[in-house]
């Protein structure tokens, strides 16, 4: 009681004393979202300025608390500098952290070892930078796992080293996911769809996405191409991007051409329509050049299917 009488609320104090009074921050001790902490935490503020989608990360369990516990200068900054050193651009840093926030807790020596391993396999620095930008989980895998996967692709597909490097550089996701779906896809291509080894090789080098495509969709598209459109294997091998399209798109365009009696996919006969143009052209160009009809006709035809 005696102590309280010494300080009255209306007593005038100097400015330094006023600034010196510490006010406990009114942040809640536990919360569901990072919104309450973002203004007070330096790490979170800098992450938002980098472009990290905090609203996506806070939905995952444990990630929010992990981010709050990081200190910007000792944890986050060295890893960001490391990424910039290997050549990742500033605009991609936010994307990488949004998809793989655990890269901020990875051991720097491990990260360096993995980058060195990739360089030892003769990937150039720009390739490594682009692979890391597009597959944020790449550097979270151990050297042994990366080695395992590269070896798998080289042996299973019997590709040369430079071809393996090429497909992995174009689709770095191949090194990140598990190998079981890829093995299944290869078995499907060989047994169910009936492609020979060299045909599969050619298709994978042209369109690596075939390896990670959905098995059901792949078989559905192939079934339609081979049995309904009567396209032989060697033509599909020549245009593997046709296996990558949406089934509905292929079906409506084929039926439209069939209705106009222009569905002719054999290169030896007249008025041949190539498969890659069939699927890759936008609607308007498809109508005017391949089908020789108007866009409205195409839409009206779709309503009769």
């Amino acid at each position, binding site marked *: 009681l005696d102590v309280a009488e010494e300080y009255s609320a209306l007593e005038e104090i100097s*400015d330094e004393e006023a600034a010196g009074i510490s006010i406990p921050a009114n942040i809640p001790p536990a919360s569901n979202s990072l919104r309450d902490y973002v203004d007070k935490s330096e790490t979170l503020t800098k992450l*938002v300025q980098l472009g990290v989608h905090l609203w996506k990360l806070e939905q995952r369990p444990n990630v929010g608390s992990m981010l709050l516990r990081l200190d910007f200068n000792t944890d986050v900054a060295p890893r960001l500098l490391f990424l910039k050193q290997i050549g990742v651009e500033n605009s991609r840093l936010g994307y990488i952290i949004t998809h793989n926030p655990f890269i901020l807790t990875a051991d720097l020596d491990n990260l360096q070892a993995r980058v060195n391993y990739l360089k030892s396999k003769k990937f150039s620095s720009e390739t490594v930078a682009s692979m890391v930008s597009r597959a944020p989980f790449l550097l979270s895998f151990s050297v042994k796992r990366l080695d395992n996967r590269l070896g798998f692709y080289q042996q299973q597909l019997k590709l040369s080293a430079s071809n393996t490097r090429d497909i992995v550089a174009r689709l770095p996701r191949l090194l990140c996911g598990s190998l079981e779906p890829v093995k299944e896809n290869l078995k499907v291509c060989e047994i169910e769809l009936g492609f020979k080894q060299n045909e599969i090789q050619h298709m994978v080098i042209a369109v690596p996405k075939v390896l990670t495509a959905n098995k059901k969709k792949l078989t559905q598209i192939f079934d339609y191409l081979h049995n309904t459109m009567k396209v032989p294997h060697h033509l599909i091998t020549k245009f593997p991007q046709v296996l990558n399209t949406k089934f509905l798109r292929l079906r409506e365009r084929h039926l439209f051409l069939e209705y106009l009696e222009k569905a002719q996919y054999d290169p030896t006969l007249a008025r041949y329509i190539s498969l890659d143009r069939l699927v890759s052209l936008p*609607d308007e160009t498809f109508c005017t050049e391949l089908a020789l009809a108007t866009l409205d006709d195409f839409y009206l035809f779709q309503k009769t299917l």
Partner: protein
Amino acid sequence: MRACANTQGVFCVYKPADVHWKLVRDTIETNLLKGVNATHPQPVPREVRFLVSSSDEPGAAKGLRVSPAAVPVLSKHPLVTGPEFQQIKVGVGHRLDTSSSGVLVLAVGNGNKTLNDLYNTRITRDYTLECEFGMATHDFSHTGRVLERSTYDHISEDKLERVTAMLEGANQKALRMYSTVDMGSQEAYEMAAKGLLGPDGKSAPILTGLRCIHFQPPKFTLEVQCLNETQKYLRKVVHEIGLELRSTAVCKGVRRTRDGLFTLQDALTRHHWSAADVMEAIYKYHSSKRNQKKILFPIRESTLETSGSRLTGTHQNKDAAAG
């Protein structure tokens, strides 16, 4: 979170075959969310905070310099809060099963109430059935397991027409049976004269109209108008027609061409499922509602029967005008 008026309403899309109706609804919801979030960017609010900077030079005055600065409040930043709209209520009208295609009515936001009323009223739907003689399968469609094959050379067009007329008659009788009015009364006669007889609410599927529009054995095409149906029932009807003709038939395609007042013309195809196209379709629906002299979708009317009667009344007017 009020979205603006041009995203509340009813519209229809053309559902492609072999696509589950839920996928269609989810795609439309995603596209609408993308459109609405893109056009409503809220600027990050700024608040004034006083930054304390103490003077570093040794000889300067000892006072503290407090400078105000307008700093953005990061807790309201879109990367921290997420997009403004994360869910939009999109409701589906009469469902279409996976292998059928055709007009599917969808409603957004407040339009769901209209959709509910629409669902409960007695409006008919138009289907086109592509069928083929010669096979019978376990699920009445051409992709099922074949149970029986038969010849169809003895079938001629007038035999088919006789069968369809008979079926139509049986269904008209069912229509009268299911309506809740006493058959011998004057009221029943007046309602029948105006075409207002019919079941209220849930009942067995009834075909109000059935005719053959194309006959080229083994293929033939039927046009059906019906109430309270499911697509499986329609395929069963085709199977029964085959049996009546001492042969077998399967249904290759079910296509809904009209659902109440939404026709193929208003339906949006797959390429027009972006937010802008959907909003345009809703605008067209609202303006057509304003233009009609009669009230089409009374939300506040009391009895179901009156609203049903008005709808079938206008439908009949349209029929009379068209054919």
